[in-house]
């Protein structure tokens, strides 16, 4: 076993364990904290796959923003936490069944995909993946249209948020 494989096994075990903890904890903040461990583990997996950019973006976007926003939301709605607990625990058997079904279907479908069982090709030395990604995002042959559409959508969301949050009845 190579050290890389050892790191992978430890990370995978940590991800599974913390993901299980996320859905079984009574305390919502504990769930959010375990979710951070899960997301960080996924970032480590990206590093093992030599996708450094994705790993960093995973940490920046998910841990940096979503996890914190989640904790914030939980804190501000603290009065409802007790009610939420009972809901999440009541249907646990049903939820477990659905997730096992979903997971096994996914594995079955993925197993038929040839890339699933092949090993990843070695990256050529001296290739800057970030530069290639950046060029692909803005080149007409690449993904310039989805990229621009996404940015327009985000801008619209931003303006919408400003409109909703604007103080009422004060000037125009």
């Amino acid at each position, binding site marked *: 076993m190579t050290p890389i494989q050892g790191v992978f096994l430890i990370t995978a075990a940590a991800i599974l364990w913390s993901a299980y903890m996320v859905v079984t904890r009574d305390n919502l903040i504990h769930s959010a904290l375990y979710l951070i461990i899960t997301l960080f583990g996924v970032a480590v997996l990206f590093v093992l796959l030599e996708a450094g950019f994705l790993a960093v973006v995973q940490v920046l976007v998910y841990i940096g923003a979503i996890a*914190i926003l989640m904790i914030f939301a939980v804190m501000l709605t603290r009065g409802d936490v007790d009610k939420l607990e009972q809901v999440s625990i009541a249907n646990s058997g049903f939820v477990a069944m659905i997730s096992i079904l979903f997971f096994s279907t996914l594995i079955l479908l993925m197993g038929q995909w040839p890339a699933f069982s092949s090993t990843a090709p070695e990256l050529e030395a001296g290739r800057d993946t970030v530069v290639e990604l950046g060029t692909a995002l803005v080149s007409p042959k690449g993904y310039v249209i989805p990229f621009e559409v996404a940015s327009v959508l985000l801008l619209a969301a931003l303006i919408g948020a400003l409109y909703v949050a604007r103080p009422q009845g004060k000037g125009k």
Partner: protein
Amino acid sequence: MTFWDDPIALIGQWIVDLMVQLNLPTNLIVFISTLVGVIVVASFGLIAVIFLIWLERKVAARFQDRLGPNRAGPYGLLQTLADIIKLITKEDITPAKADKIAFNIAPVLSVVAVLLIWAVIPFAPGWIGTDINVGVLYIAAVGSFGIVSVLMAGWSSNNKYALLGAFRAVAQLISYEVPMLITLLIPVLLARTMGMMGIVEAQSTWFVLLAPLPAFLFLLSSIAEIGRTPFDLLEAESEIVAGFHTEYTGMKFGLFFAGEFLHAFTVGVLTAIFFFGGWRGPFLDQLPWLGVFYLMAKALLGYFIVMWVRSTLPRIRIDHMLAFNWKFLTPLSLALLIVTAILDKAFEGSGSHTIALFAGNVLIFLVSLVALRQVSRRQQAARKPFKKRKVAKAPAAGKAS
């Protein structure tokens, strides 16, 4: 190759040779040498902080016309060690109904978040923990662990003031991350790479000449990111006791403290790398390790500015803090990014590249000064004049007697 040409590479080679003689498998040798590298870089930061705390106390004392620590050891150099011993021997209190695990992890995480940055710091040519091609983004990403640690500390303490401090911290740290990241884009744009080594190598003219305003904005928003005076609202002692670390005692408090000091110095290091040429300096061809001294000298200069600001300015009000960020720093940094991008492309390769970018910065500086003056005038005009209060009249002298 003699020892003084490149001591670190030589020591590293010696360790690898030693392991090769022991007939260890290649994978394990790579793994162990990486581990040794990690330990060396992390310990460098942790040992440096002992010296930094002494330095900060000494400098702050001079600003306040005092002597500072001067009893333990020559010039009080051993003061921090004495403090560490004191902190370790103190009673370790965990508040009742505190969340024990989160409470104990938070201080460790706050130091780790800063130490992680040191993995991508280029000390000298070839001396870098790991030269990943997304170095700048990595620095932004690990910063989010600092926010998480503050939140964990504030929430798990089971204390209203601690929670208030954590709320303030999240509002402040997330807000000031925006202008900090936008100004970080400018060195990336000028260097055409996100790798830390590449940014230093691209600075044949220091970026502070091409982008003086972004350098200033980066330092400013970084001070807010550390949560130091004038942005120390998250631990404002006159309002919310000590903010998120109210309930911490002994070395656990010490870890928050050490993390903050190390972060302040790291800000100096980052400013030096992004805008002041990093390890660049004379005689590097003969002695590459001189780069460490150049980098540290420049970083200490940045650190001195942080200390200077801390000792000089009073705390900013919380609504001013947010308004300053969203209504001034963020638009200004966006304008700077756009202007820098256009000028950099327009004058690419021409001799007047530096002059054009510098002039662009000066122009934006003047425009923002005029805009600030306008806003300030409008605010003063809108301010309500003081009403004359009714004052009780003194009774006539004859009546009283």
